[in-house]
C-alpha cells in the first residue's frame, strides 16, 4: 500500500510544537502559514472532533418512528395495503415535525439537531441485511476486490486518536456469534488500511473496562514488574545486539506503547460504575442504553469514532418480520430515553458542539413493498392481504427507497428538517434524496477530512467514497 496522505496533522503538531509556541507570541499564525505548504489535499475547517453513530441495526421503519404517516389502528380484518403507520403521530419540539408515538424524549431534543427524511439506500437486489450494512458502513458494495475500510477506520487513520489513550475507533453493542457473523466481521474492519486502525470492539458496554486495564487478576505492581522483567531480558538478548532493525524496533516500540496505555489512569473512562446511580439508571434500558452512556463518557474524553448498535441478529431487534407493531414498541423503549439523555448531557457539558451524533439504519421497512418501486426484489416475508392476526400488523418487508437519518451537534443546523417522503404508499423519498456517499462526505466534511482523500492499493486509488465523487450535504450545516 502506498500512502498518499500521511497523518500530516498529527506529525505536524509533533514537529511544530516549538514553532507554535514561538508563533503564539506574535500575531502571525506561523503554524498555519507553514502548514499550508505541507498537505496535498486542501484542508477544510472541521466543525466536529468526534462522531457517535447510533446504529439501528436490522432496518428501522421510518413510518413507524421518525417519519410517521396516516395511523391505521389494528382491527381484525384490516387490509395490509391500508396500513401506513401503526402508531399515532405525536408533535415534537420542532414546529411541523411529528414523530411516531413512543419517541417523545428524542422529539424533545430535535431543536438541537436535524432530521433527514429522504435517505435512499442502495438497491442491492435480494435483501441481505449485512450486505446493506456493509455498504452503509464502508460506502462500497460487497464483494470488493480489496477489503474496504469501515468509516470509523478511515477517520481513525486520517485523524488519529484525539486522546492518545483512547482508541480512535470503538464499536459497541454488536456480538459476532450471531447469524451472519462473518458478514458483520467483514465490515467491522480497517480493511486495507491495516489492523492498526480497526475497531476496538466492546460487545457488552458493562464489561468495557476489562479491555483497557492490566489483565484480570493482575495487580498494578505485578503488571509493572512483569514489564520490567521483559525489558531487562530483551536488553540481554543477543538478537538485540546486531544493530538496529525496523522489525525488532517496531516490536519493542509497540510493547512499550501498549504498556503505557494499559498503565494510564484514563482507563477509568471505560468504567460505567463510576457514574452516579441515577444517571446509570436513566440510561439503562439495556445494552444499547448503556452503550449510549459509555459513548457519552468516551466522547467527553477524546474518542474519535464511536458506534453504538442496537445489535443485529437476524429476525430480531429492528428486523421485524412479524409482530412488527409490538416489537417496535419495545425497540422505542430501548432507544428513546438514552439517546435523548446523551444529547442533553453532551450539550450540558459543552461537548455537543464538537460531537457529531448520527442515528441511522441500513434501510426502512414497509407492510407491502419489498425493495423499491419498479425493482423486482424477491419477497422474503409472507404478508397476508387481510390482517386477521395482530402478528401480521406492522412493517415486515424491506423498503430501500426512503428512511430517516437524525443528526445532532458538530456544526449541524439546529431544528432543520431536510427532505421529504411521500405521504401515501410507496412512502419514498420525493424531495432532496440523500445517498450514502453524501452521508459519508457530510461526516468527513464535519471532521475536516477532504473529499478526495484516498490511498493507492494494488496500484489503484481507493477513495473514502467511490471514485472520490461523493459530495457533502452542505445545507445540513448551520
Amino acid at each position, binding site marked *: 500500500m502506498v500512502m498518499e496522505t500521511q497523518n500530516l496533522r498529527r506529525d505536524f503538531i509533533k514537529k511544530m510544537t516549538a514553532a507554535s509556541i514561538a508563533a503564539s507570541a506574535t500575531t502571525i499564525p506561523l503554524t498555519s502559514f507553514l502548514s499550508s505548504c505541507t498537505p496535498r489535499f486542501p*484542508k477544510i475547517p472541521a466543525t466536529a472532533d468526534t462522531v457517535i453513530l447510533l446504529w439501528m441495526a436490522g432496518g428501522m421503519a421510518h413510518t413507524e418512528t421518525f417519519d410517521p404517516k396516516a395511523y391505521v389502528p389494528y382491527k381484525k380484518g384490516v387490509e395490509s395495503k391500508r396500513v401506513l403507520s401503526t402508531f399515532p403521530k405525536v408533535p415534537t419540539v420542532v414546529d411541523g415535525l411529528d414523530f411516531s408515538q413512543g419517541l417523545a424524549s428524542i422529539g424533545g431534543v430535535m431543536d438541537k439537531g436535524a432530521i433527514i427524511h429522504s435517505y435512499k439506500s442502495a438497491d442491492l437486489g435480494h435483501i441481505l441485511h449485512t450486505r446493506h450494512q456493509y455498504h452503509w458502513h464502508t460506502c462500497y458494495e460487497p464483494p470488493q476486490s480489496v477489503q474496504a475500510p469501515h468509516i470509523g477506520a478511515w477517520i481513525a487513520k486520517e485523524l488519529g486518536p484525539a486522546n492518545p489513550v483512547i482508541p480512535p475507533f470503538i464499536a459497541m453493542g454488536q456480538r459476532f456469534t450471531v447469524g451472519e457473523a462473518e458478514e458483520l466481521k467483514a465490515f467491522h474492519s480497517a480493511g486495507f488500511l491495516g489492523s492498526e486502525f480497526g475497531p476496538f470492539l466492546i460487545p457488552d458496554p458493562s464489561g468495557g473496562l476489562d479491555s483497557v486495564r492490566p*489483565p484480570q487478576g493482575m495487580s498494578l505492581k505485578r503488571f509493572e514488574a512483569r514489564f520490567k522483567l521483559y525489558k531487562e531480558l530483551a536488553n*540481554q*538478548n543477543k538478537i538485540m545486539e546486531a544493530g538496529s532493525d525496523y*522489525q*525488532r524496533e517496531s516490536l519493542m516500540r509497540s510493547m512499550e506503547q501498549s504498556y503505557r496505555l494499559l498503565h494510564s489512569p484514563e482507563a477509568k473512562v471505560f468504567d460505567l460504575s463510576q457514574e452516579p446511580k441515577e444517571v446509570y439508571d436513566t440510561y439503562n434500558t439495556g445494552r444499547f442504553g448503556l452503550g449510549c452512556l459509555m459513548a457519552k463518557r468516551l466522547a467527553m474524553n477524546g474518542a474519535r469514532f464511536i458506534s453504538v448498535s442496537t445489535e443485529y441478529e437476524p*429476525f430480531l431487534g429492528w428486523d421485524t418480520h412479524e409482530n412488527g407493531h409490538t416489537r417496535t414498541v419495545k425497540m422505542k423503549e430501548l432507544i428513546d430515553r438514552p439517546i435523548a439523555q446523551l444529547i442533553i448531557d453532551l450539550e450540558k457539558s459543552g461537548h455537543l458542539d464538537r460531537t457529531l451524533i448520527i442515528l441511522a439504519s441500513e434501510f426502512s421497512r414497509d407492510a407491502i413493498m419489498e425493495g423499491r418501486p419498479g425493482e423486482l426484489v424477491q419477497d422474503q416475508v409472507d404478508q397476508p392481504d387481510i390482517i386477521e392476526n395482530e402478528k401480521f400488523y406492522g412493517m415486515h418487508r424491506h423498503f430501500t427507497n426512503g428512511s430517516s437519518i437524525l443528526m445532532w451537534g458538530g456544526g449541524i443546523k439546529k431544528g432543520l428538517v431536510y427532505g421529504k417522503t411521500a405521504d401515501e404508499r410507496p412512502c419514498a423519498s420525493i424531495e432532496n434524496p440523500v445517498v450514502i456517499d453524501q452521508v459519508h462526505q457530510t461526516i468527513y466534511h464535519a471532521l475536516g477530512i477532504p473529499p478526495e482523500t484516498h490511498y493507492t492499493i494494488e496500484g489503484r486509488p481507493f477513495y473514502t467514497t467511490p471514485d472520490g465523487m461523493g459530495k457533502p450535504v452542505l445545507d445540513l450545516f448551520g
Partner: protein
Amino acid sequence: MEDFRWIFQFLGRLHPLIVHFPIGLLVVGLILELVTIGQKRQGLRQGINWMVYIGAISAVIGAIFGWLLRTNDDYLGELVDLHQNMGITTGALAGITAFLLMRKMKNKASSYIPYRIGLTLTVVCLIIAGHLGTNLTHGEDFLSSVLPGNTHSPDDGKAALLFAELNQLDSLTTSRKDQLNLEVRKIFAHNCYQCHSENKKKGELVLENKAGVYKGGKGGPIIVFGKPAQSELYRRIALSPNHEDVMPKKGKVLKNSEIALIRLWIESGAHWSDQTLKLFPEAPLALSKPDLPVNSTEKHPVDRLINSYFERNAIEWPEVVDDKTFIRRVYLDIIGLLPEPKDIDQFVVDPDPDKRSNLIDTLLGDSTNYTEHWLSFWNDLLRNDYTGTGFITGGRKQITDWLYTSLKENKPYNLMVKELVNPTEDSEGFIKGIEWRGVVNSSQRTEMQAAQNIGQSLLGINVKCASCHNSFVSNLTLEQSYGFASIFADSVLELNRCDKPMGKMAEVNFLYPELGNIAAKNKKERLSNLSEVMVKPENGRLYRTITNRFWQRLMGRGIVEPVDEMDNATWDGVLLDWLAADFLDSGYDLKHLLKMIMTSKGYQLPSVSYHDVAEIKNNFIFHGPTLRRMSAEEFSDAVSQVITPMYAAVAYSPTGELPASRIWHRELKFERDVLPEPGKRYFRRTFSLANRPIQSATVLISVDHSYILYINGKNIAQGADWKKVDKLEVSKYLSAGKNCIAIEGFNEGSIANPAGISFAMKIEYDNENDIIINADTNWKSTAVEPHKGWVGIGFNDGDWAKVRDYGTSNWGNLVNFSFDGPAGKFARASLVSQHPFMKALGRPSRENVTTTRDDQATLLQALELTNGAFFNQVLAEGADAWLVHYGANGQRIIEALYQRSLGRNPTKSEREIMLGVLGGQPNREALQDVFWATLNLPEFQFIN
C-alpha cells in the same frame, strides 16, 4: 440585488490585478525607508510618502476586492481562510502605517519609529498573504516543486537520453522512428489522456490513436508535418508555464526533454508506428534454463549464481549460520514447528557433513506437519478459509480437502494449477469466487473474480485494475480482462466501463494469446483449454511466479517485488529463471523447489537487518535472508509446543473423525431460533442395553460452559472447560435394561451466548458390535428446574422438548475428542478457524487473495499480547501445567523454558534475572510473568 451581483463579481476578479500595487509599492517603500534611516537621503522622503499612501490605499482595496471575490465566486477551504485573514491584516496594518506616517508628517508624532515598525509588519504580512495567494492560484507545490531534490520524474532521464541519442543522427531509420513515436505516445498517455482520450475528448481532441492525433481537435489539425513551429500541438506545450493556453495545464507542463522529443517527432514527419504502445514494462513469457557460471568457487547451483551476483556487487560471502540457528530456521520453514531440545542437541553433535541436507529431507518427508504448516500459505494465496462471507447463502465453497490432500501427496504444481483452473468438485471453490446475495458490481461478478484471482495468485498480474477500465498499472486493457473473464462465463459478457455497460460484447481470450487458443463453444471446454494452455512450459510466468513466492517466503524478500507484480524488475533474473526452469525440470515438484533453495549457502546466510522497510522494498541488494517475524500460526503453534496447547479445536479435521454437533436446549424468541440465554438447562437421554457382559464403556464429554453428569441417578463427573475432553470409564454404572444419562448444563455470562454439549459414549462387548451414543436430537431438555428425581431412570420426561443441534461452528472440533489416540494433542493453528488472537497477529481474513502479510508489529497486536484475555488464559493454564510437570523448581523451569522456547541455555545474567522473579520456589503468577516476558522477546518472535 441579484442584478448587480455581476459588478461585485467583476470587481472581485480584479483582486489579482490590484494586489500587485501594494506588493510593488510597499516593498520598495520599505527598502527606500530603510536607506533613509539615520537622516540620510532625505530627498527620497516625498517619494516614499506617496508610495506608502498609494500602497496603503491599494492594499485596502485589494483586501476588499479579495473579499468580494471570495463571496461571489466559490472559494472554500482553510488556505482561502488564511489568505483572507492575512490579506485583511495587511490592509489594516497598511492603513495604520499610513496614519502613523501622516501624524509624523504633520509633526504630531516625534519619531519615525512607530511608523517604520508598522511598515515592516505590513510588508511581512503582505509577503505571507502573497505567498498564500500564490499557493491558491498555482498550487501548493508551486515553489517547492522546483527546489533541488523535488523533481519527481523517474523517466525524465529516459526522454532526455533518447532525445540526445536521436538528435545527433542525421536521419532516422524506421525502427528509430517507431521508437521515437512510441516514446511520444507514452508522453501523451501519461500527461494528456486524462482529458484527450476516446472517453473524454476535451476540445474534440483524441490523442490515444493515430486517427485522432492526425485529425486534430475543434480548432483544426494540431500537427503540420515537419514543422513544429506551425503545429498547434507544439505551440501549446511549449508556452510559458503560466500562460493561460499552456498544455497539459497551467502550472503543470511537460519537461523540457519531453517537449524536445515531441518537437523532434514532428520535425521528422510525425511518423506513427504500427506497434501497440506498451506503457509499462513487461517481463518475457518464455522460460529457458540459463547456463550456470563455470569455474565457480561454489558447487551448489544457486550459490554459483549468487556468487556471480556477489562478485558483480562486490559483496563478500558471509559465514553461514551455526547449527542451532539453522535447525530452528528449517523447522519453522518446512513444518512450522520449533525443534525439540533433544533434536537440537542431536543435530549439533552429529558429525555428518551432509547433516543439513539430510535434515531438510527428513522434514520434507514429514508430510503431515509440512502440509499443516504450508496450508496457511496456500489458504492465503487461494483465498480459502473455513469461515467468512458468502458461506451463509451458499455463495462460496472451501477447497480445503483438495488442498490438504494435494499438499500431503505433494501433487505436481502443474496438476494443481490444472485442477484449480478446470476444477473438480473439490477444487471448484477457487474460481467460484465469493457471492453475496443480491446484485453485484460488474467488476466483481464471479467470472471477473476468477480472472482477477488467477491473475494475481497464479500469474502475478493485476487484473483487478483492468476490470473497470484500462489498467493504469499495467498494459492490460478492459477488453483483455473481460475476454479473460468470459472464459469462466456461461454466457457472453458485456463490457462495463466503471460499472456502465458499453454495448460491446467480450471476446474470449487469454491474457497471453501466444500460448494457445482457448475459445470453445462451452465453458467446460474453455476451462479445459485454459488449464492446458496455462501450464505449458512456455508459460514461464506461471513458474516464475510460484518460484518467486517460495523464495520470498524463505528469504523474506522476493527476487521480484511486489510478488504479485511479476512484470517488475528482478534483482537477479538469471537466478529466478534458473530456479523456475529447474522447478519445471523436477516435474513441477514443490518440495524439490524448497530443497533447492534451502540447501544453498544463500539460504543459510545470517539474516540481515534493515533500518527501514523501504530498504527492502526499493533498490534492494541481496546480502542474505531478511529477519522475519513468525506468522500468527507459527507463533501460536510455538506457544502450543512450549507452554500449553493454545487451541483445542480445529475447523477442518483431516481424518474426518471428529464429531460435528453440539446440543443444547432449543431457545426461541418471536418464534425464531436464537442463542441460548444464560442459566441452567437439563438434559436426558435414555436407552436400553441387552443383558451381556460389557468389556468397557467410555464417555467423552465437553460442555460449554459447565456440566454435571449423572448416569442412572449417580453423579459421575463435572467439568467447566469445554476445551478439555473429559474421558471417563463408566461401565460399572450401566446395567442391563433401561439406562439414563442426565446432564445438568450451565450457560454462563450476562447475555445470550453459545452453549453446547459434546458427548459420546462407546460401549464395547467381546466379539460384538460396539454401541455408540452421541449427542444428537434423541436427547431431551428443559429450561425449567425439574423435581429431584429427574436424573433417574424412572423420571417422566414426556413434557421435555427435543434438543437442538447447534453444530460446532462456534467451537470447532476438539482434537482430543477421540476414543483412541494419545491425549494432549494441540490443534495446529492452520486448521483452526479465524480467531481474534490470530487476527490481531496478522492472519488475514481471506475475503481476498493475500500474498504477503505485514510483519511489522502494531499497537493492537501488542495490546492483544499484553492484556488479551485469551493469551493470558493460555499463560495461566500453561503455568499450572508446568508446575505439575516440573515441580516448583526455579532452576529447572528456567533451563527448560530457555531450551524449549529459544533452543539454548540461559546465560548467567539471564538466569539471575529470571531467578530474581521466580525465586527458588516459583508460584504460578511468577511463572506466568516469566512465560509472558520470554514469548514476547524478539529472539522468540523472529526467525533469525
